[in-house]
């Protein structure tokens, strides 16, 4: 008699587990207590242990896959045993009912339904609903069905339509080149952190890090650069320098140059900086592509050009989407320090205040100095406190010693 190997709840809060590695191959003899597989739970990697004797007849899920608790992952039995009944999971055939003439008063199906019907992971939807969802690019899994047994029917899509279409429209229009990033599947730990934090604070669990930067040297460097520059067009702003430094710091801290993608984190190998630009009735974030590879002069010219067209509303979608990190500067408005809102799916944004001239203590003496406050907003699902702090320290170092930018 074959017996099922089920994903077991290996921690008190475990709802699903990732089968990291099979420890037994199909055909291997099994004794109760043998370790069949390693499973990563929300807390740790645990052992899945055999409860029956025989041979491992079937591995039903590949290593690396995530399986809900109590789902079938394998079968133990005698060699050659027919396990089709166990595998099929075919429900007992329903008694054949003649398509009877309609009952005089048909039981009305419920018209308002709980979330989409899923039987053993299958979403029930009418053929038309499936077709229309395909055409509109809607995810049926996100739609609540109002038909019998939660079947998704056309009217459910019409209701879901507006929201989903808006979401689709907001998706970045920028298309990255192949190899521009690496997708890392979420570990169970990362998943749990993400879920818990999001529950606690909202869709994007954000925390803030602030640091104060000594801008004396950057100030001097900028004056020198602009003295040598030709005309007004060549003038470099502090913002340009901060963008350049941020890009360089991101290159050194790729963990902050990432997107939250719900089931994974996308770590970008390229740095595309979104630069917040105020326009008449809001703001828009044109993107400086490959900011880490561009000279200060190029960045300066590009930001000027993009910001100009942004104010004229003449940016193309691919010019304001696809950023990997954002910089928002309110220094020109005499804001000392502020916190910025993350621009999803990016995981971080840098809020830049104004450079304040004030008395500072340097080498034990009270002297005049120029100080800048930088505040980084971090998506905690992607960036942890220490990760963000490391990035900020690098950025601060670069601005305090701008030679590092050309090093």
């Amino acid at each position, binding site marked *: 008699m074959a017996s099922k190997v089920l994903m077991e709840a290996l921690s008190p809060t475990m709802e699903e587990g990732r089968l990291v590695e099979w420890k037994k191959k199909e055909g291997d003899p099994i004794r109760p207590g043998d370790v069949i597989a390693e499973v990563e739970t929300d807390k740790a990697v645990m052992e899945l242990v055999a409860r029956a004797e025989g041979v491992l007849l079937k591995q039903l899920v590949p290593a690396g896959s995530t399986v809900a608790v109590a789902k079938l992952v394998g079968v133990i039995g005698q060699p050659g045993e027919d396990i089709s009944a166990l595998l099929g999971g075919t429900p007992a055939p329903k008694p054949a009912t003649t398509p009877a003439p309609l009952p005089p008063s048909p039981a*009305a199906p419920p018209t308002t339904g709980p979330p989409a019907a899923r039987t053993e992971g299958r979403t029930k939807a009418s053929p038309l609903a499936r077709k229309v969802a395909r055409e509109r690019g809607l995810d049926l899994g996100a739609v609540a069905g109002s038909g019998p047994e939660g079947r998704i029917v056309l009217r459910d899509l019409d209701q879901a339509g507006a929201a989903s279409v808006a979401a689709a429209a907001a998706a970045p229009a920028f298309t990255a080149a192949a190899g521009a990033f690496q997708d890392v599947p979420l570990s169970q730990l990362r998943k749990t952190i993400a879920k818990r934090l999001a529950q606690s604070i909202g869709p994007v669990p954000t925390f803030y890090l602030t640091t104060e930067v000594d801008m004396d040297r950057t100030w001097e460097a900028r004056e020198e650069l602009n003295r040598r520059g030709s005309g007004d067009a060549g003038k470099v702003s502090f913002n340009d320098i901060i963008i350049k430094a941020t890009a360089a710091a991101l290159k050194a801290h790729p963990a902050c140059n990432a997107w939250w993608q719900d089931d994974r984190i996308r770590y970008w190998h390229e740095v595309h900086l979104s630069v917040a630009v105020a326009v008449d009735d809001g703001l828009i974030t044109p993107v400086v592509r490959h900011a880490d590879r561009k000279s200060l002069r190029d960045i300066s010219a590009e930001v000027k050009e993009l910001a100009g067209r942004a104010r004229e509303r003449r940016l193309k979608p691919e010019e304001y989407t696809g950023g990997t990190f954002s910089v928002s500067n309110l220094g020109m408005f005499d804001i000392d320090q502020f916190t910025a809102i993350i621009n999803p799916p990016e995981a971080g944004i840098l809020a830049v205040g104004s450079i304040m001239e004030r008395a500072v203590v340097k080498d034990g003496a009270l002297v005049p100095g120029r100080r800048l406050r930088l505040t980084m907003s971090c998506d905690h699902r992607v960036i942890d406190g220490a990760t963000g702090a490391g990035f900020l320290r690098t950025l601060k170092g670069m601005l305090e010693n701008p030679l590092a930018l050309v090093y």
Partner: protein
Amino acid sequence: MCSREGGDMAVLTYRDALNAALREEMTRDDRVFLMGEEVAEYDGAYKVSRGLLKEFGPLRVVDTPIAELGFAGIGVGAAMVGLRPIIEFMTWNFALLAIDQVVNSAAKMRYMSGGQVGCPIVFRGPGGSALQLSSQHSQAFESWYAHIPGLKVVAPGTPADAKGLLKSAIRDDDPIVFIEGEMLYNVKGEVPEGEHLVPIGKADVKRAGTDVTLVCHSKTVTVALKAADQLAEEGISAEVVDLRTIRPLDTETVLNSVGRTHRCVVVEEGWAFAGVGAQVVDEIQRRAFDELDAPVLRVTAADVPMPYNKLLERAAKADPAKVVAAVKRVLYLPG
């Protein structure tokens, strides 16, 4: 859809529309003759052949003994040698006695003679139930004959279609099973005068709508139209597709309609099992699968011999209330 010469309309009963078709075709083609029980001296059990004996004489309007198999066979033989017989069965219930001639002779003749001998014959008479005629006289046999390759099965639901389809049937070179509605004989409607031909194999949208398609034929056209009226009062727009011909089935018209409404209820007078609607549902699920927002439902006779008791008979028949209930189910509305 229809070709006409005159264009003038007359209000006729279904019975008189059939009578006009017979008269016009017998006038047009002297190979056409009518044969059956009581068709001549008595003017027909349902008076469909009224006046024809007087007009065309006993050689072309022929009374027969009560011997369905015999006179159906005479008809088949006459058709094989070049005449155009119309065989009237007093009802299709009695035609069971003659079904061998219809299925084994008429339907097979062209095929088994290698195309040498056709069988241009019309078998006609009332089908389905009337009121309290009980089990043996209340049967809809469309699906029986539609099952047979070689037969065309026609079942008009209105006086105009009755005339236009019977004229087309008499001119057709293949055997036709022409099933009239006993309860329709007194129904009145506008009928084009003169040359009015309705093509065999073409369904007709009797009422346009957007929310659900009601497929029907013969007597259930009236049922579907009444249901559509009731649904309209609740803001539901039903399209009524009258098949008119069961075989060849006009699936194109049905699929076009379902492609627009995405929901369908098939209504018929007969029983559900292997019924006409079963074939319609098969075509829809196969060829319009992605258009369906709900399973296709059917409204049919109850799966019992027709009861004699008036209330039980009423409960066993397809009616507008059952159609309305089915429509609400395919629209996922509380019923």
